[in-house]
């Protein structure tokens, strides 16, 4: 019996230390999520103004013929950018993104479009390496605090592939798969087509009313040429920030349920330990009583 009690106590100790680790992870994630949300909000004005400006230029000149806005009639190759996390311990975060990416690739291949994969985040890179899937490019090291320079780096690589002719390995479409931060409790894996552009409103509603007649310096075409790459970058930056906030929120939730589970386990195990201890005491008493009785019987004779 003594051996069982010791085994149970050892398990309690190990679960306790696990709980400590997961609790610490949860607290770290809780403190980081606020910062990640702030970054997400801080980046919104830039994205909003840029979107408005691009809308203004595009609506002003209907006959704009810019390669970044023209859908290609029969696309043959598409780039898929997948944003995953660098570290694990975040529940189904990466699995959801990768599943979404898989179904996107299946869809594209069903339409006879070849896919080229770009991956950001160590977990996604590992997933592709393990399965021997080829990646056109990979980035890592910034999944939880992406800077604008990271977005610039990724965007320039994608834009380069987009501007190359398809016959020389270029792509006709760029899709990005990432996790959208809806709220602390909800994050959703989504797919967006980054190029050719669909002008999308990001966070806030546009102020009502028609778009004013802008003057352009130097000219509408030059303005558009300058704005579009920045717009792509900004969309990508938003996706990175969304993904970072989602990752941390997912980690917080995963760690919270791990801590809860561990505490439940500790409770169960301590009941077991108490039972074992009680059984040991009962046994000892009955042994003593039995021994005393035997002694008394022996002396009586």
């Amino acid at each position, binding site marked *: 019996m003594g051996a069982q009690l010791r085994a149970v106590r050892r398990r309690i100790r190990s679960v306790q230390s696990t709980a400590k680790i997961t609790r610490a992870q949860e607290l770290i994630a809780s403190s980081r999520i606020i910062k990640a949300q702030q970054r997400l909000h801080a980046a919104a004005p830039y994205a909003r103004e840029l979107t408005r400006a691009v809308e203004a230029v595009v609506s002003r000149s209907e006959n704009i013929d810019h390669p970044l806005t023209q859908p290609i009639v029969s696309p043959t190759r598409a780039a898929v950018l997948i944003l995953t996390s660098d570290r694990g311990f975040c529940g189904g975060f990466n699995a959801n993104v990768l599943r979404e990416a898989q179904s996107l690739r299946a869809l594209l291949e069903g339409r006879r479009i070849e896919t080229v994969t770009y991956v950001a985040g160590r977990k996604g890179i590992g997933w592709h390496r393990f399965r021997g899937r080829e990646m056109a490019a990979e980035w890592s090291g910034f999944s939880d605090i992406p800077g*604008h320079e990271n977005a610039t780096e990724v965007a320039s690589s994608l834009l380069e592939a987009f501007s190359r002719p398809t016959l020389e390995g270029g792509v006709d479409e760029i899709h990005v798969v990432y996790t959208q931060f809806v709220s602390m409790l909800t994050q959703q894996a989504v797919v967006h087509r980054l190029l050719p552009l669909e002008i999308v409103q990001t966070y806030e509603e546009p102020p009502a009313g028609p778009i004013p*007649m802008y003057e352009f310096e*130097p000219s509408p075409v030059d303005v558009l040429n300058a704005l579009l790459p920045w717009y792509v970058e900004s969309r990508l930056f938003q996706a990175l920030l969304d993904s970072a906030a989602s990752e941390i929120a997912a980690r917080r939730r995963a760690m919270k349920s791990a801590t809860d589970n561990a505490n439940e386990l500790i409770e169960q195990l301590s009941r077991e330990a108490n039972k074992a201890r009680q059984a040991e005491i009962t046994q000892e008493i009955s042994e003593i009583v039995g021994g005393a009785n035997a002694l008394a019987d022996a002396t009586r004779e």
Partner: protein
Amino acid sequence: MQVELVQPEGELWSGNAEMVIARTLDGEIGLLTNHAPVIGILAEGSMVQIRPDGGGADIFAAVSGGFLSMCDNRVSILARQAELGTDVDTPNVESFLAEALRDAGAGPEEPPDVRYYRALLRAAEQS
């Protein structure tokens, strides 16, 4: 009119202003209240001057590139990278500039980062 100076990672300055002077690819542009709607691409490594309402000191900021848009008395200056003149760490920037100049060698035109560093120093000097 309302002015905001924004970079991708957040807002740098916002408030009401009398006048904004910036340099677009076409040349200097000065914006006063009720200026017609305009969108202009900022020259790389240029300076933006904002004269706030109420007669405070002018604000100078260096921008590495970006654009400005004005509409309904709201001016948005979107910079890919920007810094207020008062925040510039002059000795640090000077060393960066020296380094960038050394890397650049003798070209006909200065690279964008050199121009941005120069703009930073000018902004620091003026404010």
